[in-house]
């Protein structure tokens, strides 16, 4: 049996996936990224390789594709492919009916339209600042003295939305602290934060060509409050993926590795 790897070295998390010849996921992992991208990739690959009995090291993979922010730092990679292409392919192999993605990574937000073969039809990217990214969520959770999973559910009980006007992460954190200090309901403030980010996502999705439904990928895809904001307020249907949405970049990379490795 041949095996194929994808390693997505993100700014916050590093993900790795190994596929068999049939495209079945045989191993995966998600680790907090180190400051050194190469070290993050080595750790992630060692972990997934350790889960497959037939493999001793990354060198035993028939083909390995690196992706993400540190894509050119993946040792033994045969190729690196942008995370935009890999997220598109990852979602395509998970659910071919999905045609648009909002990928919220640690440092940027991307809207991606997928073609019928899993390639990128169009994309839009917000990379000017940390507003609306994973870093933004981390700052907001910190302001509420919560962890991310807890914060992501906070807005679900809100009856009203308190708008957050600042777009900048630093100013938004300051605005949130002021609102909390004024005694405003925390769930309503959280709903305002989710709304602000949902609007950013909406713009990216529309720029990329999303029509009525999208799926979320990246770590922020697990944020229930954001999903609710996008669905209920922005009128975009959010399609749930049966595979962990945070793994889509690594899965897409592994699928590209499978296609290229099988063709060779």
């Amino acid at each position, binding site marked *: 049996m041949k095996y194929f790897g994808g390693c997505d070295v993100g700014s916050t998390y590093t993900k790795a996936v190994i596929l068999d010849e049939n495209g079945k996921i045989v191993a995966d992992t998600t680790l907090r990224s180190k400051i050194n991208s190469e070290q993050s990739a080595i750790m992630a690959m060692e972990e997934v390789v350790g889960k497959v009995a037939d493999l001793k090291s990354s060198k035993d993979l028939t083909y390995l594709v690196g992706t993400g*922010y540190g894509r050119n730092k993946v040792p033994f990679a045969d190729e690196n492919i*942008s995370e*935009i292409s890999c997220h598109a392919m990852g979602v395509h192999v998970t659910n071919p009916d999905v045609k648009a993605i909002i990928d919220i990574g640690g440092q940027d937000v991307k809207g991606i339209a997928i073609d019928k*073969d899993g*390639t*990128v039809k169009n*994309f839009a*990217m917000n*990379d000017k600042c940390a507003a609306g990214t994973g870093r933004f969520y981390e700052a907001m959770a910190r302001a509420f003295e919560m962890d991310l999973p807890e914060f992501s559910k906070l807005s679900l009980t809100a009856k009203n939305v308190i708008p957050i006007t600042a777009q900048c992460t630093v100013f938004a954190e300051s605005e949130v602290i002021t609102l909390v200090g004024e005694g405003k309901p925390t769930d309503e403030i959280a709903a305002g934060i989710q709304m602000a980010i949902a609007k950013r996502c909406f713009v990216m999705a529309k720029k990329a060509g999303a029509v009525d439904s999208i799926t979320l990928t990246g770590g922020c895809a697990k944020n229930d409050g954001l999903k609710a904001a996008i669905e209920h307020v922005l009128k975009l249907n959010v399609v749930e993926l049966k595979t962990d949405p945070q793994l889509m970049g690594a899965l897409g990379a592994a699928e590209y590795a499978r296609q290229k490795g099988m063709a060779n």
Partner: protein
Amino acid sequence: MKDLKHIHFYEDLLEQANNELVQQAKSEGGVAVGYTCFYVPEVLLNVGNAFSVRLRAPNTGSLDISQYYMSSFICGYSRALVERAFEGGYNFLDMWAGTDTCQQMNRVVENVVEFRLIDNPTFTHGFLDAPMKITEHGNKHYEHMIQVEFLDKLKDNFGVDISDKAIRKAVKEHNEMCKIFEAISELRKAENPVITPREFHILCLVSYACPTSLILPYLKETYADLKKRKPDEKCPWRARFVVVGSELDDYTFSEIMESCNAYVVADRYCFGSIPGRKQIPLTTDRPALEQVCEFYLAENQCPRFMSKDKIEERHAIARKLYEDYGADGIIYEQAKFCDFWGYERMLENAKFLDDGDDIPVLQIDREYVIAGAGQLRTRIQAFVESVEIKKIQKAGGAK
């Protein structure tokens, strides 16, 4: 491929505006005239003992001073010019040929003059009011402005020879340089070209940033070297693009393109070779000044021209470059807060979509200093990947 002849010398020249060749020209009695825009015919600044320097602000750091005076919602190029002027980076200039072509350039000249930023007792400036339409009246006005704001000031302040004969001599030298660029540009049409996008970008930049008479001998030798040069056996380029857009004087952009194996086949942006390195035809029956001015207005493809014919002409040129150079797509790049190109790139993207023949278009909004190269690289790499796969599919090579 082995290093191109003089390429490291060129890189050094681009490290500062007051470079080695500028200093040499000054020491030989040259009058240095800084300018920023294609609306200023550079060839007319190269008459007599005057020489042009298209202003860049290499190694720009923080823009705090210029931001204070100009706001943060103004393009980085104009802020960097003012910042560098505050730092004393343009004290070698004898004259600044300014333009009223956009609000940003207005503000640059305003700050340079108001704060007396050029520490040179003989420094003077001219300010061009350029027409927004090409009409007979517009042409006459443009020529008049160039005469009184630039040429007369060069003559009156520095004794520069601005005669018809001097203009024709400058055009001849300019055309000699353009001829080299036209020939090198043709080399880019090859399947596996002997010149890289980075190298071409550097050649173009030095041709703008150095005195023509002093850079020309080097460019001739570089071209001779290129004619003998052999490309690497394996063609590294995955896709070929026409780059269209605003002011771009940082060759980091071309380095990023190269790192994604993307080849720039045609460069239609400010500081690029199209149309800046096109030969100027002159006849003997009319004054050279009149013909040069007509040429520069006619060839100018700045989106400041908002008449329907010019908008359509710009679209047609981008399409023609795409076809002539066998490109796989077009990249519209825009300096952040460049009003005209911000509008143009959106409009052009929509027009190419409307054309319905699937010419891939990528829009890039970038800072003057290309920091955050990783994210720009991701955009370009993703575009290359999507174009490449579609190219393969078109050729029937993939399912």
